[in-house]
């Protein structure tokens, strides 16, 4: 069904390294295969070769042969590949072509030029199977991450391909949305679809995977059956740059900090419209000087909480009591710094050094270089911030927060879509900030990150329930 023969590939922009080196694999019809490995190991490249984006969209130098159903991908047009292979991507924000859900569901069929009646009947049956009735005819921009991913899966189904590939589909999902995704995979498996998943989070794939391929540096390290793979201990997995096989629900974790040093948010009430209050708390205590994890299901208001806390939502009238002082929204803005989930929004300047300089009250190049050195960014000081890797960008944002002398740093999902090694890097960064005397508050679903570095956990859902009683 899917055959790779000695495939090598080098992206046109990347002059140094091959993204794939003499890679071979055979996937039979109806198999479910998991491809894993640290970031940059080439698993996304494999996915892109199956759906034809390589070589038809991403340019580069390719040798070897990729065949799907006996057809050579390089000789087929992308729109012909679309009938054979359906793809679910990582980022729910960027994989939709339409503004409303129903148009999105039928988009693939419309492109194939199927008959209207045929499309409508497919739409009906998919809506039943994928349980997306409630989501039809809605504005995609107003759906949650989990709902968006559901639509993405369902719209792959309407096109009815035999092969479905998924490129890190769970990166932005919480625990319950991942359970939904797992169900989707189960259904495909039962229908006899061939499934190829590239993932960091392994736990949810394990139930239905027949085979696991571990990659590194563009090469296949191991190809194992499921039983064999499950025998690996966590430590062994970590050594290969892989995440744990346990699927821990971060909401069940609890770590109590015994510090007496606390900051208190009083009268925290906020909603985006008048009717629905997302946040409604008399007071929330947050331990100071710790690394505090903020957990809770998607939609419970974690990000909103961060936005109110750092003073970005001006309509939120809550007052923070910190040390001996009281801070209103405007004053909090100068006390805190939020590292956003999409850190690209926070990078403005033309090089990294400049980025740090513009945050300083008085521009001081020496001090700026010191900060960069501390965060291991010295070598890239002259690079354009946008051209850096994800982790480096995050550190640049942190550097500008330190330069602006903020005391409290907030992180929104800093490890979504990160492999083990990069997750540990983030954990180290957070620990370093704590030692530096900063308070760190981090919104996360990542149980491993919490285990590794957090010194306190606040469960927003539980707090909400207590408050409601």
């Amino acid at each position, binding site marked *: 069904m899917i055959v790779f023969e000695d495939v090598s590939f080098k992206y046109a*922009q990347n002059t140094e390294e091959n993204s794939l080196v003499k890679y071979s694999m055979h996937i039979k019809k109806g198999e479910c295969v998991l491809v894993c490995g640290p970031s940059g190991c080439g698993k996304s490249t494999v996915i892109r070769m199956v759906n034809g984006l390589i070589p038809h*969209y991403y340019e580069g130098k390719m040798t070897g042969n990729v065949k799907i159903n006996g057809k050579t991908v390089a000789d087929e047009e*992308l*729109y012909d590949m679309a009938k054979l292979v359906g793809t679910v991507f990582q980022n729910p924000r960027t994989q939709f072509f339409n503004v409303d859900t129903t148009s999105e569901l039928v988009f693939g069929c419309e492109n194939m030029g199927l008959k209207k009646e045929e499309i409508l009947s497919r739409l009906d049956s998919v809506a039943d199977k994928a349980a997306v009735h409630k989501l039809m005819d809605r504005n995609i921009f107003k759906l949650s991450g989990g709902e968006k991913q559901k639509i993405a899966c369902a719209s792959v189904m309407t096109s009815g391909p035999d092969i479905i590939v998924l490129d890190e589909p769970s990166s932005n999902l919480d625990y319950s949305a991942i359970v939904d995704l797992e169900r989707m995979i189960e259904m495909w498996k039962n229908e006899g679809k061939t499934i190829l998943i590239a993932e960091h989070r392994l736990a949810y794939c394990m139930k239905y995977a027949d085979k696991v391929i571990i990659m590194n540096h563009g090469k296949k390290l191991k190809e194992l059956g499921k039983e064999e793979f499950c025998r690996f201990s966590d430590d062994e997995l970590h050594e290969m740059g892989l995440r744990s096989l346990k699927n821990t629900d971060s909401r069940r974790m609890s770590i109590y900090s015994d510090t007496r040093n606390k900051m208190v948010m009083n009268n925290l009430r906020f909603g985006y419209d008048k009717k629905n209050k997302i946040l409604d708390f008399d007071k929330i205590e947050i331990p100071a000087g710790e690394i505090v994890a903020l957990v809770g299901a998607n939609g419970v208001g974690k990000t909103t909480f961060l936005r109110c806390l750092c003073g970005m939502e001006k309509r939120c009238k809550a007052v923070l009591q910190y040390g001996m002082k009281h801070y209103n929204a405007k004053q909090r803005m100068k006390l805190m710094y939020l590292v956003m989930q999409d850190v690209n929004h926070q990078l403005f300047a*033309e*090089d990294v050094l400049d980025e740090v300089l513009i945050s300083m009250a008085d521009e001081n190049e020496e001090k700026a270089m010191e900060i960069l050195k501390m965060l291991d960014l010295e070598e890239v000081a002259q*690079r*354009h911030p*946008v*051209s850096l890797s994800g982790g480096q960008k995050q550190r640049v944002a942190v550097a500008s927060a330190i330069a602006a002398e903020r005391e409290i740093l907030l992180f929104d999902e800093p490890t979504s879509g990160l492999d083990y090694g990069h997750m540990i890097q983030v954990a180290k960064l957070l620990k370093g900030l704590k030692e530096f005397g900063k308070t760190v508050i981090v919104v996360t679903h990542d149980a491993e990150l919490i285990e590794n570095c957090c010194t306190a956990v606040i469960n927003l859902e539980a707090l909400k329930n207590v408050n409601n009683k």
Partner: protein
Amino acid sequence: MNLNKENKLNGKDLINIGIYSAIYCVLVFVAAMLGCIPIFMPLLSVIIPLFGGIPYMLFLTKVKKFGMILIMTILIEIMMLLTGMGYFPLLIGFFAGLGAELVYKSGKYQNLFKGIISHGVFSIWVLGNYVLLCLNPDSYFATRQNLGEEYINALKGYTPMWIFPVLLVVCMVFGIVGGYLGKALLKKHFRKAGIA
């Protein structure tokens, strides 16, 4: 792949046109907010060409085939139509777009200088927005004949015909300035950021 196929616009090109037109239109709408105060309306022929040069020059890095610039102008004009600026921009825009396309084509779609000139030509579309307002003041003001001869003459004086060639030149000149601005930012940011 044969030559013919490579010269035909494919899905990727069409999507690119849509994306850059969207960015361009957002900039235009932001600028048009200023134009809400009607006295500033003539200023639009300065502001839009000036800032439009930024996305335009970035867009040109993706243009390799005939028709992309032309389609972009048509899209922008359709947006103008939808926001109530009438059908006239569509006509002027078509020729401005065609002109810009030919200028850039003459540089085999890679000459940066021709790109800047091409933006100057492209910017003429802005003129379309004024046409209906200025073209026949006589007939329009005739509807208010009872309002007094003096008023009509004064208004005619305020929107005289010579304003057209002036605006035309202004659009082109600032279009070229905007092209240079776009080129500078291309070098300063977009190349380094890896998107150009």
